[in-house]
């Protein structure tokens, strides 16, 4: 059976497989962060809670994540207009700023640790480390997907799926930015 006909399918709202998968995945990740923030808001009402100062570095990291998203938009536009150079510029920018964000977060942890905000010394600290680490892990997942797509773009030949794939990757990165924006605002205001 080498040749098979696969295109007679009932589709859900005209979406592709990968789109459905991605939207579902983002739903599941949202639930995960919903639970952790819920637990955070629950736990902070207890007497021993002492908020910790947010390192200024986090603002720069947030900026890096915004620029990574801009890179993905750039790449998407390149794919849309059939301009491979723009795809590459956009992907490289997204990769660099994504990496900067990750390194920046690690540095922020080290800064806090250095001035005595240890993970176990207060529940506010623990939550800070846990929430930011969970987010970084999901960003790293995005980096793995970014690596895959970049390999395809830089080493592979023309691929009809490029726009589709880059679009989806971009959605995940924007989503990571959105999650970070929400988490950061909760961390800042509580």
């Amino acid at each position, binding site marked *: 059976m080498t040749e098979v006909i696969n295109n007679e399918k009932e589709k859900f709202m005209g979406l592709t497989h990968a789109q459905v*998968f991605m939207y579902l995945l983002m739903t599941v990740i949202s639930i995960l962060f919903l*639970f952790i923030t819920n637990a955070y808001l629950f736990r902070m009402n207890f007497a021993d809670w002492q908020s910790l100062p947010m390192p200024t570095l986090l603002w720069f990291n947030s900026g890096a994540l915004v620029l990574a998203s801009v890179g993905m938009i750039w790449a998407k536009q390149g794919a849309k207009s059939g301009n491979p150079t723009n795809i590459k510029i956009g992907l490289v920018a997204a990769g660099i700023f994504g990496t900067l964000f990750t390194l920046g977060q690690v540095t922020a942890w080290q800064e806090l640790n250095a001035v005595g905000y240890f993970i176990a010394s207060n529940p506010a600290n623990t939550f800070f480390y846990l929430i930011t680490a*969970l987010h970084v892990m999901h960003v790293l997942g995005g980096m793995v997907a970014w690596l895959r797509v970049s390999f395809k773009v830089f080493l592979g030949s023309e691929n009809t799926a490029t726009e589709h794939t880059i679009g989806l990757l971009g959605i995940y990165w924007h989503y990571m930015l959105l999650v970070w924006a929400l988490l950061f605002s909760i961390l800042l205001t509580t």
Partner: protein
Amino acid sequence: MEQSSAYEGQPLHEPKGWWGRYVFSQDHKVIGLQYTCIALAIGLTGMFLSLLMRMQLGFPGLFESIDAGSYYQDVTMHGMIMVIYLLTALFLGGFGNYLIPLMLGSRDMAFPFVNMLSFWFYLLSVLILVSSFFVESGPTGAGWTLYPPQSILEGTPGADGAGIILMLASLAVFIIAFTMGGLNYITTVLQSRTRGMTLMRMPLIIWCIFLATFLGLLAFPALLVGAIMLIFDRVLETSFFMPEIFKGGEVLDYGGGSPVLFQHLFWFFGHPEVYIIALPAFGIISELISCHARKNIFGYNMMVWALIAIAGIAFIVWAHHMYVAGMNPYLGFFFATTTLIIAIPTAIKVYNWVITLWNANIRMTVPMLYCLAFLITFLIGGLTGLFLGNVAVDVPLSDTYFVVGHFHMVMAVSPVLALYGGLYHWYPSVTGRMLDDRLGKIHFWITFVGTYLIYFPMHYIGFLGVPRRYYSNEQYDFIPQSVNDLNQFITICALIVGAAQFILLYNFVVSIYKGKKAGSNPWGACTLEWQALESPPGHGNWDVQLPVVHRWPYDYGLPGATADFVPQNVADEDIT
């Protein structure tokens, strides 16, 4: 869209060599079988642990190796293995993988590679779980709910060693495996239905697996968060869940945390988990009852909406597991009400099954026996649930053997009966041969009658106030001798039922070689998995063309047709 259809119309991934075909397979049928075999193997381990517990309860002190610590370890691992690693994995990973693409007229899952990864992560989680038996101080003995603070404090078996960490790590890996599988099942159901297979023409079991997967995807993150936070508390000595604790006059490093927070996270997962197990069981029963009674299922639309209602309400009942943890009475009233409301859609389903049987041409095959047994057992288990759902009745019965009897009836025996019915029903599709009918009936009657002899008396023991989870009942004045006699009786029954499961195992193995040839559609079923070109279906499931669906999956006894069933892929003009 043109781009995407070119993207998705890629030729099927052909397996390479023996390893690619049977070990690192991306074929949903092989992955389903791999899930089934591993789940049954670990399930047998879970059963063995339960027999050890029964030996201690029936004949205290007979085995010197069973002390209080190992008893708690057996209790914990038995519960966790049965709920998560056997039933969840077997229903969704086993039945889900095997049936979804076949029943929807698809060639495979939407993402075969992710599907394969899902199985290997599951296997890894099982191995991590099993490894905890071999570490110093053994697996955790905290009870399957793993409530802190006791689950991570010295004195609880496995808490000072690696036991509890391995348990939590195994759960985290299982959740990753489940998420990969679950995203696949939902994408496949939404995207890979063949032409004509509308959502309201899907077999009910696919609806059930679909909704159970949704429940899992939304509920497991709560457990994951709880598990990660508990690992933090154990390893880094943080205080998410740990209150101030005095031990031997000394203050521990913990302080300020809330054990009830863990209970909320756990049961927000834990209650939907009941339905993650129950819904696929409902699905199997719906398929089997219609097929073996040769009658269309009563109220298909109602069944689907009842399932959706159950899945929705399943998320707002969780705190009925926590009545005795201390709760605002209004909150208790809310959760008691939602708990009772969920009985309505569940009752709709039971009524519809019974009405399906009404005036039907019932064939007393082994799968049908299991269906009937399921109906009775589920009803009884459900009715005792009404007792426990009410706060005022639950408080005195909580943590007694009444609870053990209730939940074993409703979420252990019932799903296992459905599971066995499903195994007998679909075995011919997998192997091309029938299971031995006589052995099947012997196995059925011993299992069915035996489980009643095991769990019915527990309700009475519970009414007497005998607490569950106690290692020994010997030194308590309020426990009469009759309880010990009853415990002996239960243990003997449990040993017999345990031994009887090897009949099934024997039947499974021998029938692969010596079973009666099944032909392509031995039960005369309408659903697509029996209409494949080859039997058992080959890689890719279908011929060059996918089947086209013309009707719903329960056209039994259609007027004007000579056969008493019309498969889904037969058009009106082709009916003879």
